């Protein structure tokens, strides 16, 4: 096995009496898609938010690329290469597709030397942004405002942003939500290519997508990881079937 890019050990988060995440251990290795499944309220989104830094952690540690990032803020983690897409949407609706990606590109490059020059003719910004739009198949939509894009297009735009951020790991929170069969298929293909760029931690309810994509699956129930292992084993696991996949199905 290759080394872990993201290592989570003993992670806890308490909201009052509710333990949203309870001693979660997780590893994300290079080149893999690790799916996180579980019923609503299992703590998947809380866990994603802890990893990306939106929520603080009560106890436990998050190591990213061998470095403890538990005490870093959202922006600092993003700069290290933790790329995240949201359950709702993580694009700026008023910006065009190109400008959304340009924002990510400049974040990698820094503003220091170009504090004063116009972005409109800045090739060092536009060209990498355009490249990433091509990679996700949105080149012809570059000038379109994100607000006017379809749901599926916005999802692809999010991935272009994560690519532009030079993400070393992707955190994808229900990327398939609200997509039709066509959109799901297109995104599944995109994600299976994306794993070669950086490993993916995927929260997803679409079980067909999960089992066709994931190398490794962890099942979360009431904040605890009740099972974790290769996708095939999890599919057969009896406790998982009763807990989540629908009893005797």
């Amino acid at each position, binding site marked *: 096995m290759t080394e872990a890019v993201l290592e989570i050990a003993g992670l806890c988060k308490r909201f009052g009496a509710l333990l949203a995440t309870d001693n979660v251990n997780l590893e994300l290795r290079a080149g893999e898609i690790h799916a996180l499944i579980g019923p609503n309220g299992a703590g998947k989104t809380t866990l994603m938010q802890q990893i990306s830094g939106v929520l603080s952690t009560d106890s436990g540690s998050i190591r990213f690329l061998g470095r403890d990032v538990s005490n870093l803020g959202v922006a600092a983690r*993003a700069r290290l290469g933790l790329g995240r897409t949201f359950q709702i949407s993580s694009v700026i609706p008023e910006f065009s597709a190109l400008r959304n990606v340009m*924002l990510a590109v400049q974040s990698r490059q820094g503003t220091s030397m170009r*504090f004063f020059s116009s972005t409109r003719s800045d090739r060092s910004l536009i060209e990498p942004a355009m490249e990433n739009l091509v990679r996700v198949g949105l080149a012809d939509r570059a000038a379109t405002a994100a607000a006017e894009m379809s749901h599926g297009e916005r999802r692809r735009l999010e991935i272009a942003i994560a690519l532009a951020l030079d993400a070393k790991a992707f955190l994808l929170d229900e990327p398939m939500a609200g997509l039709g069969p066509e959109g799901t298929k297109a995104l599944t293909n995109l994600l299976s290519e994306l794993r070669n760029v950086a490993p993916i931690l995927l929260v997803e309810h679409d079980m067909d997508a999960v089992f066709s994509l994931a190398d490794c699956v962890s099942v979360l129930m009431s904040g605890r990881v009740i099972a974790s292992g290769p996708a095939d084993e999890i599919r057969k696991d009896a406790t998982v079937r009763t807990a989540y996949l629908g009893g005797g199905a």
Partner: protein
Amino acid sequence: MTEIDLPHRIAWGALLLVALLAPIIVGFDPYLTHVGIIIAFNVALATTLWMIWSLGVISFAHAGFMGVGAYASALVLHKLGLSMWFGLWIGAMVCGALALFISLPLMRTRAVYFFMASWAVGEVIKRNFAYFKDFFGGWDGIFDIKPPVLDLMFVQIDFANRTAYYYLALLFVSLTVWVVYRINSSRTGMIYWAIHENELLAAHTGINVFRHKVICFTIACTLVGITGALYAHYQTYISPKSFDIWKSEFALVHLIVGGLTTVGGPVAGAISLTIVDEVLRASGYFRTIFFGVVLIASVLLLPGGLETIPRRIRAIFQRDSHK
């Protein structure tokens, strides 16, 4: 994108040309030149306020910071005996330092809390001018703030001359607008608008939101501090009332009437409303009422502000060409 750039450049160039020729057009009329200078100050105030707006907030402390620049420059003249050429920059630095210090807690607040906190900051600045009587002159303010004299080798320009002061104000206001415009169209401006739309998303693309907010606020306040110094040496008299909350609110009205999405908005809003205000001056008591009517009418009839006029005209022509 270049086809959009060209009309923009023509519009800005035409505006600058009119501004440069304005004293000649009005035949060096002292009153109209005075209006021109007031327009220049209001444009600078609105434009720098708009820069803070690009972060998504409106600062009601803005006129207060203009006051800091004004008082600093006036005190440099009276206590240290240095002319505005020094006071202007010292005022800007004092303003910037104070803005940096205050923005550290202020920029941690959001939305309506920011409005309230900034309102309080503006009020506290004003009250301090009034309270420390020996230093700031209390409610009576500071008198006799002399305009500067520029002593070149062969010529001497006395800025007590109104036309001369008009060009001085025009120079600094043009620079202010240019700086704000350039920052706004740069990567930094792109970051500000991203923060404006959604702070959390901006953070997720690796942007240090807090630091950018502090820097933006400090730059905008430094620029308005320069405007304050120019204001003080033009009026030759300042008091706490010159920089109260109403001045910030009028600047906000200039933004709303002019438009909020481009730097052309505050410029157009400040120019047109300052003229409207001067025209209404004759109506005396009813002036504020008329001003309110103009404001409501413009919001109802021209949503998006004056900056949308070129787009509306273009839309009309496009509709005709499709017939």
